[in-house]
């Protein structure tokens, strides 16, 4: 599988994938979920959000959902998105990557502390 272009690995893209991994959703719900999850530290503006969604769509990591919730539950105008298997793989890969980075950083830190002693 070819590597997706670099820009879908941005922190925003990561957050969107993470959000969609829990289930399909629409634009505003994605930003709301991310804001709630990050204690309001990350509020994504619409321009950024839809550009990222657009890029994720092009890269095949997410897809527009054809299903809609019951009309009385939600506004039918809104587009819904779901994560694709490729997206899940990408997300898994990125989480693993982040874990490697974190492990590595902790290792360096510990060694640094030992040196001081």
């Amino acid at each position: 599988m070819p590597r997706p272009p670099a820009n879908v690995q941005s922190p925003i893209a990561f957050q969107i994938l993470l959000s969609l991994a829990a289930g399909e959703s629409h634009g505003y719900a994605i930003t709301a979920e991310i804001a709630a999850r990050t204690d309001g530290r990350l509020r994504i503006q619409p321009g950024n959000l839809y550009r990222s969604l657009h890029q994720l769509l092009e890269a095949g990591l997410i897809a527009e959902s054809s299903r809609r919730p019951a009309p009385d539950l939600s506004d039918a105008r809104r587009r819904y998105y779901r994560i694709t298997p490729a997206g899940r793989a990408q997300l898994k890969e990125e989480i693993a990557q982040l874990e490697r980075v974190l492990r590595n950083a902790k290792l360096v830190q510990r060694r640094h502390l030992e040196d001081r002693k």
Partner: protein
Amino acid sequence: MTRLYRLLLRLFPPAFRRRYRDDMADVFSDHWRRARRSGLRATAAFLADTIADVIVHAIALRRSDFQTPGRREGGVMKALWLDGRFAIRSFRQRAGLTTVALLTIALGIGATTAIFSVVRPLLLDRLPFPEPDRIVSVYEFQTRDPDSMTVANPMNFDAWEQQRDVFAAIAGFSGRSMTLSGTAEARRIGVVMTTPGLFDVFGVRPAVGRTFSEAEVAADERVVVLSDGLWKSVFGGDPTVLASGIRLNREQWRVVGIMPPGFEMPGSAEAWVPLALSPEVRSNRNARFLQVAARLAPGVSMEMATTAAAASMARLAAAYPKFNQTYSARAVGWREMGVGHVRDGLWMLQGIAVAVWLIACANLANLLLALSAGRTREFAIRAAVGAGRARLARQILTEGVLLSLAGGLAGTLLAIWATPAIVALAPRLPRAEHLAVRAPDVFMALSMSVLTGVVVSVLPAIVATRAAPRLATARTETGSRGQRRTRALLVGAQVAIAVVLLAGAALLARSFLRLTAQPIGFMPGQVMTAHISLPRTVYDTEEKRRQLFASVVDELEREPGVVSVTASNALPFTWYEWMEEFVIVSRPDAPHLTASYRVVTPSYFETMQVPVLRGRGFAATDTSAGPRVAVVNEAFAKRYGASSDVSGLTLALADDRLPIAVVGVVGDTRHRSFERPPQAEVYLPLSQSGPGDMTIAVRTAGRAADAVPALQRVLRSIDPELPMADIKTLQSWVGQAVTGRRFYLVLLSVFAGTAVVLSIVGIYGVTSYVMRLRAREMAIRIAIGATAQGVERLALRQGMTPVLLGLAAGIGVALFATRLLADQLFQIQARDPSTLIAASAVFVLVAAAACWMPARRTVRAAAYGILQGDV
């Protein structure tokens, strides 16, 4: 707000926009609701973030649109992208300065765009007709008052219509409103009754069907042409209306055609119906009721048309000795007719708006200059690690253009909001309801933004790139002497422009106050007026007309809350006027006198509160059977040297020479405007004259508007078919007389205020920035023995020098520039010294405060720093 956001979204590439627009607006409006709840500061931050978000991601998306596969990565777009990202980061670090800069540009460009959106359609755009310069309006005027303007007599129109070699097409028309029924709900529409030539005058063919034929007009058939607007809004663009027809004033009319979109000539017409001028009407020498539009024949100039129209009137005057004696005619270009009264004023306002923009530019250039001086070290380091001069210059240019584009966008939004307010405030403008910020105005605003960005970045770019390699190790960040001089020059220029505008606004304000303080001779408060025009078919005798007005006045006087009631053929400030020629019977040697002819009911002087100075006013005893009496005003009395005693004076109308005894003198009233001094007036009682249409005036104990239900009730009870027009307070009529002045006063004040605020912000911003950079120097000065006050004085002196120089220059310019306002001034000289002095004094005080505050703060901090050993 969401609508504005959607406008912003136009920055995105079209395909992207079409796909996500609605969703984005949705998300925005949800965010916006939340942001608004969390205070002003958060709202402002949110809006700034939103604008930045749209710009950044729109550019990014457009950039990726450009990049076709196989094209070289990097290059100019890539560098610009990097510069842009860097610029936004650097703005974020200097949030305060960036906000000031953005507001500055927004005000400058907003002001210019708002005025431009009015000037462009009214004065610049070609009228959307073939050969628009050949379309004229022909009107009559009274020869003794060349500025007067009146509608044309049908016999004169008939003569003009014969002059085919002068007028290739000509139309007489008259506007009215009619009730359109048979649709979802009945509504009043603006209808133009016109002779068939109107469509040829404008050279516009109907989009559907045809216009009415000569035969249909001659037969006075019920045929109508609809405007596109009416057709679309009421009939949903349904073509079957041509077959089914419409109902107007309870009659069935045949729709013969529909005009193309946007055609509403001669004004805001929604439909056109035939105006049948029968041979009898065409020989009527007593009425004037036609507005006339014409298209000049090839080779005929405006002057030739005027001469021809006047000549044909003179021929008729020679043929009929009582006709056209005091009238002539004139042809004026169609556009001139609509906007002549505001053209100079609008250009002046456009010039002033540009001046405000120039201040904004100077301000911004100064802020960026101060900024780049402060960033010398940054540039030096970047140069040291390998940035070329061109790269640095481009960085600064990108920053300037991005900043001013963002400001320009905000300015455009400001203009979108401000234009309707300006139009509402303005004196009567043609097609006023269509005036708004449109695509060409936005394009102009954005071009201006780019221009602004380039202009304001040039100086800082030169300074930075020149200084960069040399100053890598320098400690000074306050800029070289050359830079300081440039800064001073920019401050001085701003101050000069601001002072000129301030002086202009002050002159207009003083004129306005003086004018509205003029005594008008009556009390307009608590008076409601309504115009009643009687159909001559029903009220065919003088007696019937007199009877009607007398009973309306009687009935109204019995209504609770009504103090007194009168009726007059020409109430002051209502634009009705009657002139008659009088002779003085008791002094055969005195010349004839043209005076205003006022028919009034006995309670007129009481209702209008015009004082009776000598003799008496009218009484119920002045009946049609009694001796004929008149009351004159003081201007009339003075004219005849009869100011002390008028009891012996006997007048007569030059027409019938029936003697009328003058029984009293009343105070003068201004009739048309505050400016025009009172003219000679003769009042005659309704009972002894033949009234035409009258205006009712009701003085109330409470608010004037309280009289409206009573007016409607009384009129309905007397004759339910009679229409009332112009139901307005007398106060609003009087207010209308100063609409034009109020318009210029308000706009010039707003602009002058903006200019002053901008230049003060500029002075404050630059002084505080420079002072912060000079804190170290201040501290050293204090450390080696200068007092804090001494250092503050030094800073103040250095800060105020350019202000005072600018002030001097501004006063010099103001002495000449304020002459442009001469037309708008009243009893005050354009060079009025006290106004100039007051304006300058205010300015100096505020500027000194703007200099002193940052100086004081810095010096205090520096003195404190010494104690802390923190230098």
